[in-house]
Structures are given as C-alpha cells and as structure tokens.
C-alpha cells in the first residue's frame, strides 16, 4: 500500500496563550538550544492605555513554509524539506554562510556558534517520527498548540482549519507559511 501523503502543521489558538514561556523552555531542553538563542518565542503586542488596554501574546517559530525561501537560497542544499513538510537543516552540508538567515522572512533561524552551522525549529522531527508530539506542543499548559497532519481528515488540525477562522503571518512573502493562527 502506498504511503499516504502527509503535511504536518501547527495550529495556534494564541488567545489562550498566557506568556508562560513553557514552550520556549521545553524546546531549549529538548533540543539543547544554546543560551541566547531560541527556536521559538512569544511576540507581545500592546494596545491602548490604562485603563482601556489589551495585550496579545502570539507564539512563533519556524513556519515550515510550503515554499521555503531558506531552502531556495541555500547554496549546498543543506536546508531541505521532508515529504511531510518539515523543513530541516542537514548540519553536515551546512557551510554557515547564513544566507538562509537573511532570506527567512520570519527571522526564525539562529547561528549555532559552536558548530558553525545554522539551526532552527525541527518541529521535533525526532519525536514526531516516533509518534510523539513536538516538545512545545506537549508542554503547553493552556493548550494553545495543536499539532497534526493537514492531509488527515480526521485530525484535529484539519477540523480546526475547516471550522474556525484563521490567519497566517505575512503571506505576501509568498513563502506559504504553515503556522495557522486561529482568530
């Protein structure tokens, strides 16, 4: 039987985010992210003035784009996209030119000083391949993050995107970002 096509994505219900940064910490621990770098982060947007004001939290990380500009500009093909949509860096082929960092519209990559290569969110592909959830998804206490396969009609992400309104960030870059923010 032929393998069914997969397309992993994250759906984020950012209104539930309380800015506890557990996802950031979990990611750092899971992926040994050096001090000073992050693979995921939380944007804060303030609006209004006291007493009429609000603050929004919005988790962000690599968008695992449909047409990743980082992979396009990579001169050695070190950045590549798996068949299931996860964009990864092959560290053995990365020469550390940082063209991908310049080309990423979301500034989602960082330079790993120790190895001289560029690192980024892997969507915890090592966990996903074992059937587990990415570390940030598993740890989120307010259930902001939903991970799943967009091609699977029974998945929660599929259901959310079918029934809820959502947006993606900066679609005008043409990258086809795959982090879906519920409205």
């Amino acid at each position: 039987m032929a393998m069914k096509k997969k397309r992993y994505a994250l759906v984020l219900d950012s209104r539930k985010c309380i800015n506890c940064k557990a996802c950031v910490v979990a990611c750092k621990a899971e992926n040994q992210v050096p001090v000073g770098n992050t693979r995921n982060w939380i944007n804060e947007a303030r609006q209004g003035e006291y007493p009429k004001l609000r603050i929004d939290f919005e988790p962000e990380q690599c968008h695992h784009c449909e047409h990743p500009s980082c992979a396009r500009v990579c001169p050695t093909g070190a950045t590549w996209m798996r068949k299931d949509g996860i964009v990864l860096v092959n560290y053995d082929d990365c020469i550390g030119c940082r063209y991908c960092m310049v080309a990423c519209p979301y500034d989602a990559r960082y330079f790993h000083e120790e190895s001289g290569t560029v690192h980024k969110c892997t969507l915890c592909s090592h966990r996903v391949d074992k059937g587990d959830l990415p570390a940030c998804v598993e740890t989120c206490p307010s259930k902001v993050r939903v991970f799943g396969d967009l091609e699977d009609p029974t998945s929660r992400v599929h259901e959310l995107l079918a029934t809820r309104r959502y947006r993606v960030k900066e679609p005008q870059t043409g990258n086809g970002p795959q982090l879906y923010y519920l409205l």
Partner: protein
Amino acid sequence: MHEFNWGLLIVVYLFLGGLSAGLFFAAGLANYLEVDGQPAYPRVARMGALLAPWPVAIGSALLILDLGNWWRFYKLFVHFRWESPMSIGSYLLMLFTGIAFVYAFAWLPEDWRQRLFSKVPPTWKQVHRLNVDISAHRKLIAMVGFPFSIGVGIYTGVLLGAVSARPFWNTNLVAQMFLFSALSSGAAALLLAMVLDKREPIQTHETKFLITLDIVFIVLELFIILPYIIHGQLSVLAVKQALWLILGGPYTVVFWVFFLGLGLLVPLGIEVSELAPSLFKGKAFHGDRRLALVASSLVLLGGFLLRYIFVYAGQVSSFHRMGMLQ
C-alpha cells in the same frame, strides 16, 4: 535589536568582487580600442589586466573566512543549485577569477614571466611547461572574460536582490545598480593606479579615456538610483517603509551625504569639469593629476559605501519588523 547576520566582511567582499569585474571590463575594453591600427591605450590595458584578479581573489578568501565552517567551502562546488544565487555565484566567481588570472598572465611582461618561473624549482617540469607566451590571445581571453566580469558585477547585486524577505533589496534595480557601481569603481581604481604609478606617469589621453568611462558609468548608476528611490516611494507599504531607512532613518546621512554626495556627485562634478572644456569648447584636455587622484578615491569610497548601506540597511528591512523600528 535586530542582529546582523552579514557584516563587514561581506561588504568588503561585495566591493572587491565588483572592483575586479570593473577592472577587467575597463582593461578588456582598453585592449580593444585602436587608433589608426595601433592599440590606443596599451598601458591602461596592461595595468588593468595585472590588477584585475587580485581584489576578487582577496574578496573570495574573505568570503570563505566568513563562513561558519570555512573548510567546508568545497561543498559549494560539489552541489549545483540553480535556484540559489549563491550557488550560481560561487561557480561564476571561480571561473571569473581563473580567467582574470589567465588574462593577467597574458599581459605579464616577458622579463617578469621569466623571473617568476626562475623561482620554480627546475625539477617541476610540468609547471615549467606553463612558461609560454600567450600574449597573442589577449583579445580572445578578454572576449571570453567580458560576460563573466559582467556576470560577477551583476551577481553581487542579485545575491541581495533575490531575497524576497528583505524589501530594501528585493527590487529589480539592485543588480544593475551594483553592476554600474562595480564598473565605475573599476575605472576609478585603474585611474588611481595609473596616477600613483610614478615610474611611468599617466598620459593625458589615458586620463581622458578613464575619466570618460567613469562618467558614463556614474551617470548610468545615477539613472538607476533615482528610479530606485522614486519607485520605492510609489511601491507597496513594505518597500516604502524599507526606504525610510535612507529617507530619515539611520542610514540617511551615510546615503545622501557620504555615498550620493561625496562618493558620486562630487567625483562626477570633478570629472565633468575636467572633460567638458575639451568636449564642448574644443580646448585641450589637461587632466590634472591631483583632481584625478581625488575623484577616483572618492568613487572608490562611494562604491564601498553603496555596499555598506545595502548590506546593513537591507538586513534591517523586513515585512514585520519595520513597525517596531519606527
């Protein structure tokens, strides 16, 4: 604050790569020009040919040193990715450097060549087989090299222009801007080198040729920079916001005063005022040595600053960060 992933080494490399392209182009052109069947500017052609390979060789070395893993640079040449400007550029750069060295070798005076090979141990027979006079093929090598020099000049711009995430770069004018800036830097560097060469003082007709060449390239560059700004202002919000970096933002003074003023308009003014009397009033061209020195140095400064502004301002520009900056 936004981090700069590409720093001064990249600026210097982009400048040196363009400089070599310009030197090769000017030298090759001088090689082709003849008056009454005699080469018109043989000394310009030789000086340019001998200088051309060095900046790009140094620049490429800097580029390799800037890598996170410099010893992995060979991986650039075991992959070919036509979608990546850097991949295409690496091959282009390597081929151009090779051609520029061959061209320099073709212009090496006989005694220099013999002295060079006398340093090679006599047992290295294969190396000594390279001790041949290829000066008869200068024109052919120059013709082969022209497209590569233009390619390198354009490539330094395309490297930045192809990045859709950076609105400051992502216009179809950056490539031409860098090309003309490179060609003008090349002509200016050649003028500077000829003026500084005390053993064989520069002759008036050579100064006139190089100044004319430089005026043409500077004017072409201006014709690109003006539409770049005007079009950008009339473009979508992200591009308009990116242009704020040089229209009120942190790079305004360096762009308008030091690049456009000192690096472009002042040398253009000097060169035009030198050339105009002989062009329009039929007076003899004098070619003041000090003025040529000042003008060519300023053009080189301008070429460097253009790359500096673009590399840094371009990295600040983005689709989502501009709001925070302002």
